[in-house]
């Protein structure tokens, strides 16, 4: 069955640094992959979508890469701010549905 792996340990970084979150998937080849942000007690909010023929996509301080050979996506937040603290979910598309990872919690400290 399909499996999504995100680092279950929280990522703690200092304000101004670049945060890098990893998403690995196995047992399928998604046509595209999405990243979401989720704050405690709230629904996820869509951030970025990257397709299998795109190596990299950027949106303001966000950058996503998609390596179909490694079956991995990296999510970067540059010049991180305390307001970026949240859980970030990876969601590759496969078998006619989005399959969500459990997410990685990011804490940005002043």
């Amino acid at each position, binding site marked *: 069955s399909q499996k999504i792996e995100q680092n*279950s340990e929280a990522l703690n970084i200092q304000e101004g640094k670049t945060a890098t979150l990893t998403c690995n998937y196995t047992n399928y080849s998604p046509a595209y992959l999405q990243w979401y942000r989720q704050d405690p*007690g*709230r629904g996820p909010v869509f*951030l970025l*979508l990257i397709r299998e023929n795109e190596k990299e996509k950027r949106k303001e301080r966000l950058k996503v890469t998609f390596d179909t050979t490694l079956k991995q996506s990296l999510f970067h937040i540059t010049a991180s701010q305390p307001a970026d603290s949240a859980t970030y979910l990876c969601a590759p*598309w496969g078998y006619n549905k*989005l399959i969500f*990872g459990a997410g990685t919690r990011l804490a940005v400290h002043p």
Partner: protein
Amino acid sequence: SQTIHQWPATLVQPVGSPLSLECTVEGTSNPNLYWYRQAAGRGLQLLFYSVGIGQISSEVPQNLSASRPQDRQFILSSKKLLLSDSGFYLCAWIGQEDSNYGYTFGSGTRLTVV
């Protein structure tokens, strides 16, 4: 603009009681609609999705059912709740799969079965 409404925000129900959660979407027509459940520390589990009125696909056999009586209304139900039904329930919609806009989620319902 499109909005999604989900209620109630929190719910505490005894084991064996019925459940009805409602989700409505405004500002769009013929959306694909989804019910997800999120357990603490776990990923979102897709429960049901619907591509049109009366069309329901079930992803996980369980104690729950879904219905879509109107184009922009999606209802999650149970006749008898189990303790294992506790979780954070989220409704989501998208106008077209493979669009560049992703899913829009509601604010969720925190269900505790006691």
